[in-house]
């Protein structure tokens, strides 16, 4: 259970960020984010004192936790879990996307390549990181670095945390769909182990474009979905008021996805949630990540690729009707 003091601090932080965003004004993305924060704040206030990360907590609360402003972001995990990180920029085609961070680092005595969505902590950072919503150049940079890793025999760790791929004019002009699709086709060909960690929001295709791997880990309070509960509500219920029902219906929690066989392992979070203790979260994740890499590194590349294909091929659920 979150302590009242911590809860209050979170509320104040949210209020401060909303104010800042309003002062920035202008940008539609900023306006959108302010709106989103207001909803979070409301939810925090409603649940004052009583949000429990234990049983009985429903899907919508997981959504709020996954989006919690104090939750560790990709760069936090990178600094807590990895050493010697060097960031690699740019897709060599159009530009560098700060919403998707890539680089090389050391982890438990081996070299790894890192790819992950990055959200911003304060307003300036949020705008810089485009709220963790990549443009096509982000996905193309990610694939470039993953192919680099395959060339030099480094395993890949991807860190997933995005509301989704950015829906903007420029993104469409530069082929957002093509960028995602191409990653989905090329990543299965990479002859090195890939471990995926869904640690915050797994927002649809924008998440999936870096979430194909040999082992998919998902944090207890992370969510992963084909569509945000808000958008689902607006399409199926034709209003924004059914997001909680939509969250439940979509089955976006780690347990549910694990039960469906889409996620290999659920990573427990500290009692109060990952946002309450970054260091503890990292220390829980570290051995699981290390074990996953060791398991995969033991496999010959052909076997690795065969299993990766099989894993994807098995994602089937249907019935035969007469």
């Amino acid at each position, binding site marked *: 259970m979150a302590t009242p003091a911590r809860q209050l601090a979170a509320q104040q932080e949210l209020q401060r960020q909303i104010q800042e965003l309003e002062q920035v004004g202008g940008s*539609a*993305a900023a*306006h*959108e984010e302010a709106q989103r924060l207001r909803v979070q704040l409301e939810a925090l206030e409603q649940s004052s004192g009583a949000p429990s990360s234990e049983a009985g907590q429903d899907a919508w609360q997981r959504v709020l936790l996954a989006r919690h402003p104090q939750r560790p972001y990709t760069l936090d995990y990178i600094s807590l879990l990895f050493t010697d990180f060097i960031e690699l920029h740019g897709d060599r085609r159009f530009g560098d996307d700060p919403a998707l961070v890539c680089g090389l680092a050391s982890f438990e005595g081996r070299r790894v390549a890192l790819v992950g969505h990055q959200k911003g902590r304060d307003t300036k950072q949020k705008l810089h990181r485009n709220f963790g919503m990549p443009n096509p150049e982000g996905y193309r940079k990610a694939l470039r670095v993953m192919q680099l890793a395959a060339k030099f025999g480094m395993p890949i760790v991807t860190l997933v945390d995005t509301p989704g*791929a*950015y*829906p*903007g*004019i420029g*993104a*469409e*002009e*530069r*082929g*957002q*769909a*093509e960028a*995602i*699709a*191409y990653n*989905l*086709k*090329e990543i*299965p*060909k990479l002859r090195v182990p890939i471990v995926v960690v869904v640690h915050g929001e*797994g927002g*649809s*295709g924008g998440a*999936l*474009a870096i979430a*194909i791997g040999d082992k998919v880990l998902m944090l207890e309070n992370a969510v*992963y*979905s*084909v*569509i945000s509960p808000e*958008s*689902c509500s607006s399409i*199926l*219920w034709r209003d924004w008021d*059914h997001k909680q*029902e*939509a969250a439940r*219906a*979509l*089955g*976006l929690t780690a347990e549910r*996805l694990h039960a469906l066989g*889409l996620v290999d392992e659920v990573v427990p979070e500290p009692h109060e949630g990952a946002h309450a203790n970054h260091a503890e979260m990292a220390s829980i994740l570290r051995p699981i990540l290390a074990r996953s890499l060791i398991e995969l590194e033991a496999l010959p590349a052909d076997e690795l690729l065969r299993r*990766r*294909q099989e894993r*994807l*091929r098995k*994602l*089937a*659920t*249907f*019935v*035969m*009707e*007469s």
Partner: protein
Amino acid sequence: MTWFRKENRPLEAPKEKRVQTEGLWTKCEACKQALWKKDVEANLHCCPKCGYHFRVSARARLEMLFDGGRYIEHDARLASSDPLDFKDTKRYRERLKKAEITTGLKDALITGEGMIEGRPALVGAMEFQFIGGSMGAVVGEKITRAIDRAIAGKLPLIIVSCSGGARMMEGAISLMQMAKISAGLARLDEARLPYISVLTDPTTGGVTASYAMLGDLNIAEPGALIGFAGPRVIEQTIKQKLPEGFQRAEFLLAHGMLDAIVPRKELKSYLARALRFLQPG
């Protein structure tokens, strides 16, 4: 007292004398002309006046692509298992049943094998009338099986997309179909077999962001709406009106995403010619 009594019959409305034309005419969405439906059908569901491309059912699509309209359908019995027991304002099961009644299909895609100008090919066509042509586990499985068949029989694969994207009612399972199909296309790459993607109005969301954009050739019909995010979502995000022609096939061609825009009348011969180049002999 009169000898003859006038019968006091109630007044009746005169019988409808109009010829029943309901459903025989349609209006072109582009040039607003009233059109005789049979003329439109005879013209491959294009407006005989302005060439506007109407949406086509999956059945009609396969019939116009295969020689003599003949093909062997595959996996017709595959149906959704409603893995999430999904319910919004309606049960997903009910939506499925209703879609089955309107379309006669179990899901939003028909796959089959037949001849295109005398050469065997596998073709999949999406059915927009079936829950917006959305892609769930059944569409994913049927396309993957078509890929497996293409590899086993060394056959080319054509998929005609017409879809709003991944199907919400199957949650992350729908999302994973993007990965499953794309990984299948990677195997098709290795087998060096041609895959042609035909994008028709509309092709958006998870379908565009997976197999629709991954063709060895990406071909679109004129005027088709093609994109990742739908236009309304983009408008809401950027709080601006979108420019005229944004996300239309011509826009995508100009931005390098398509190999060609081919009118429906020429589509079959175009595909046949392309396949002869990609898979001679």
